[in-house]
């Protein structure tokens, strides 16, 4: 009875929220329903016949979950998925109850939930997932969580509660994530990249270095891919990267178009084309392959699932506007931003950029992280840059100190003006790369929507 009441109230809240133009109702229904029945998420998720999968990590959560959803559909399952990226308990609950009927029977057979880093313990306790995927642990919104060691501790506690029937899917190349696999009751599946051609001999930034959990010495990297991801070992005590169960033996990067990957999952070799650019998406791919394998998907379902995939909301999105191609890619932390800049610089042609930096709560109110991004890469590679957003002046200053030719840089504080300037810079037939933080991305999409160019995000 209480469940029915809670679901009914939540659904009504979602309907009202959409009717009142307050957005897609991606968290509000869950908030209302949980007020009435705090155990609702546990109750309804327990009724998913094939159990639940939870995905967390700093970067790549949404994209990885999208890939897993696509694989599951190829395996003829019906995932219930918080695909809008609303990833706190309220958002997960909203997704689940929007699929469920009033009796609390979910409209699918497997749960697939992306969850916020700090929400993992709560999510695991309530959902009791059969698989947990952890993508990576980078510095992100440190103003929100304090320090990353704190998050690692939270994750360790959450994974320790998993029973032996469940699987932890962990990035072997990220020392902070790989070490989570030690001492678990759950089965552990590691994934990683094994193509030294895609890496460098040492870390690119000193700040990315990692220290051995066992003895505190600094890890040596045989290969560093990006951020602190790579093949590392401790020169002092010998501890190091666990051998991946799923690995990318060969990665051919094809600029901003995608990559060709030769992967080795447990069931045999797999040659896969992925339509998302950059090595960071190869990691997302490996996480999804590992998860799909753990859930029993066939190699054919794995390959089909990935190759039929379109880009996750806001991650890299292509939009045509008045004869210009617009590529929109979310930026939220130094490692992700550096990967984007490296991916853009694979193609030597000078680029037109629009960088939009906001400092609202959802973006992180501290923009110090801009100083950990290698904007020096844009020297000689930027044909034009427009900076915008609530912290446009900080971005302008960063480019000034990165010694980018300031004659090519302009400041347009408001999104409509910034978009117009960026499109004018790109010119007919040109390409404009828009790199916004989270709320800046919503603002840019709103501007484009008002001009009739993209659907609103909950319609996808």
């Amino acid at each position, binding site marked *: 009875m209480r469940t029915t009441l809670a679901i009914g109230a939540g659904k009504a809240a979602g309907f009202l929220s959409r009717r009142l133009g307050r957005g897609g109702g991606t968290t509000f229904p869950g908030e209302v329903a949980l007020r009435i029945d705090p155990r609702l998420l546990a109750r309804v998720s327990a009724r998913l016949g094939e159990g639940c999968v939870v995905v967390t990590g700093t970067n790549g959560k949404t994209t990885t979950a999208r890939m897993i959803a696509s694989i599951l559909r190829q395996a003829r399952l019906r995932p219930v998925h918080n695909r809008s990226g609303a990833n706190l308990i309220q958002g997960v609950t909203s997704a689940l109850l929007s699929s469920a009927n009033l009796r609390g029977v979910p409209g699918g057979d497997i749960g697939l939930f992306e969850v916020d880093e700090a929400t993992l313990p709560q999510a695991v306790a309530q959902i009791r997932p059969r698989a947990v995927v952890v993508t990576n642990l980078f*510095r992100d919104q*440190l*103003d929100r969580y*304090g*320090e*990353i*060691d704190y998050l690692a501790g939270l994750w360790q506690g959450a994974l320790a509660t998993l029973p032996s029937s469940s699987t932890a899917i962990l990035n072997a190349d990220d020392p902070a994530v790989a070490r989570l696999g030690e001492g678990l009751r759950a089965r552990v599946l590691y994934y990683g990249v094994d193509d030294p051609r895609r890496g460098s001999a040492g870390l690119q930034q*000193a*700040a*990315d*270095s990692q*220290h051995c959990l066992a003895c*505190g010495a*600094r890890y040596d990297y045989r290969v560093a891919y990006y951020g602190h991801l790579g093949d590392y070992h401790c020169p002092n005590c010998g501890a190091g990267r666990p051998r991946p169960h799923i690995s990318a033996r060969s990665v051919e990067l094809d600029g901003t178009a995608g990559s060709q990957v030769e992967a080795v999952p447990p069931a045999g070799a797999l040659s896969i084309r992925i339509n998302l650019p950059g090595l960071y998406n190869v990691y997302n791919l490996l996480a999804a392959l590992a998860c799909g394998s753990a859930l029993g998907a066939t190699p054919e379902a794995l390959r089909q699932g990935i190759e039929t995939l379109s880009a996750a909301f806001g991650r890299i999105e292509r939009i045509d506007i008045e004869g210009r191609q617009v590529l929109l890619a979310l930026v939220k932390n130094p490692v992700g931003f550096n990967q984007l800049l490296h991916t853009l610089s694979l193609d030597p042609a000078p680029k037109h950029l629009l960088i939009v930096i906001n*400092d609202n709560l959802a973006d992180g*109110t*501290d*923009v*110090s*992280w*801009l*100083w*950990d991004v290698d904007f020096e890469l844009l020297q000689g590679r930027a044909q034009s840059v427009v900076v915008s957003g*609530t*912290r*446009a*002046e*900080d971005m*302008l*200053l*960063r480019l*000034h*100190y990165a*010694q980018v030719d*300031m004659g090519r840089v302009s400041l347009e504080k408001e999104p409509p003006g910034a978009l117009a300037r960026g499109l004018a810079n790109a010119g007919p037939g040109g390409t404009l790369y828009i790199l916004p933080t989270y709320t800046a991305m919503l603002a840019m999409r709103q501007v484009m929507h008002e001009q009739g160019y993209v659907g609103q995000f909950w319609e996808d």
Partner: protein
Amino acid sequence: MNLKLTICHLYPDLMNIYGDRGNVIALSRRAAWAGLDVEVLRVDLGERPDWRTFDILFIGGGQDKQQALVARDLAEVKGPSLRAAVDDGLVVLAICGGYQLLGRYFHTGSGAMLPGVEVFDACTVAGNRRCIGDVIVRSEVGGQPHTLVGFENHSGRTYLGARTRPLGHVIVGRGNNGEDGSEGAVDRNAFGTYLHGSLLPKNPWLTDLLIRRAVERRYGPAAALPAVDDAVERQAHEALIARIRGRGLVDSGVI
């Protein structure tokens, strides 16, 4: 021949959080724009550098585990020689965790007692709540009234003793301890502060002050430096002050 400025980045991989390396970028660029030859050298755990090589030493903030490693290295390897170098006039900028370790001690939240280098007459104890948010500071270091803008994120509360002056007083934010309004520390040519942001890019007057002190120390007071344009820096400084006031954060009403 150009004058040369050598910057020491102390523990760049252990103590470098929240974009602290932006301070080294700012020092390097503005010194170069003033016509100096600039070299940045790193110094790590276990090394015993000759501090006379350096004109400016920078140390950033770090996480608890890293800070404990650094505290041990300072106590066992570098402390006494570093203290002597500051007595000798070495210009130092220390941010957050680095600032804490240049005091007498840091009594951490886990109960550990980290010894400090005693460059500053200051001690730090862990607080219950983290101080997180934008900061505006009024400072009269160098004789002129100025503002500093930045972002603080720390749980330690730092209390200054009689010998060391504060870098300034908070107009917005918590500062050293959230009680006495003080922010940061100045002792001889050593500067400590909780401000990230990064600090120096948006506060070019302090960048130039550090460079000027370092050049005068090595080449004498006659060594004149040309003024370097700071329009882009001041624009970011003013925009942040406007943003902070627009947000309606707790404001003591001084500005």
